[in-house]
């Protein structure tokens, strides 16, 4: 297993599930956890579900990806309450997550992964 895991937080269960389906094809050995939507099954994000997605990941070092702004705020809030090392990336959620997953699976070092992601940065 890679030392680094991936966390996906989306407003929609289908988006989160879809990204997971897409990337697990190319990253079978990367620990990926995801959450989409609210606990009641609606659209949205929350601090608690973002926390759960982080804590249930088997890796201690996490790269986190999200769709819209409030997902980021909940991720950052959750980071304040976790002992894990987590970095949030402001990149397109599908392409960014895919890039990170594929590179981690290939055993690429973290700095190189980050450099690749930096090129995709969005103002989001």
């Amino acid at each position, binding site marked *: 297993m890679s030392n680094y895991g991936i966390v996906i937080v989306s407003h929609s269960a289908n988006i989160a599930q879809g990204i997971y389906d897409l990337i697990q094809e190319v990253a079978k050995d990367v620990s990926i956890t995801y959450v989409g939507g*609210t606990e009641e099954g609606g*659209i*949205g*994000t*929350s*601090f*608690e579900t973002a926390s759960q997605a982080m804590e249930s990941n088997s890796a201690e070092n996490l790269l986190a990806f999200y769709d*819209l*702004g*409030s997902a980021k*705020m*909940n991720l*950052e*809030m959750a980071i304040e309450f976790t002992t894990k090392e987590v970095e949030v990336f402001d990149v397109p959620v599908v392409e960014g997550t895919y890039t990170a997953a594929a590179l981690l699976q290939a055993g690429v070092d973290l700095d190189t992964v980050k450099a690749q992601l930096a090129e995709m940065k969005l103002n989001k």
Partner: protein
Amino acid sequence: MDLQTSIKWMELFNEKVQANKALLIELDTPIGDSDHGSNMSRGMQHVIEALEAKAPESAADLLKTVAMQLLSKVGGASGPLYGSAFLNMSKAEHQGLSIAEVVKEGLAGIQKRGKAEVGEKTMVDVWSPVVADLEANSLTVESVKAAVEATKDTKATKGRASYVGDRSIGHIDPGSYSSGLLFEAMIEAGVI
């Protein structure tokens, strides 16, 4: 801050949020995702239940309970934003700071979380003038309402409303409206 006064503050805030739930949803519909009213309503319901289940020992203790409930029960952007605000206010209250300083710390929490500045059509546009008025000892219900109303003519450049750009002009920002309710409740409860 006196404990009983702070309890009164939160009770009044809850009443206002519940009474304005439909309006908050309506404000959030053209420029957001229509969830602000129901999210805040649910969050404040949990706040009141938590305060009834375990009586707070101090105003700082109360503010912390409010923070944790809003953080975990509101969701969306408002959960972490209000949660960060109340968490900071609790810490400031614990240090025995003045109400102006307490609210200023709350604003700092919101800005740290949301990275918004004044003029971007967010709750910062209400919290910031409220802090200035508290420092000048001139905060009134009217000045709170004026700050909320002023968000109407602003174009959103932060938050969900920024996705609709110029179309956000002409609508009051929902987070500013609920913040206005918080500060009206603060004045009515006799916190200042």
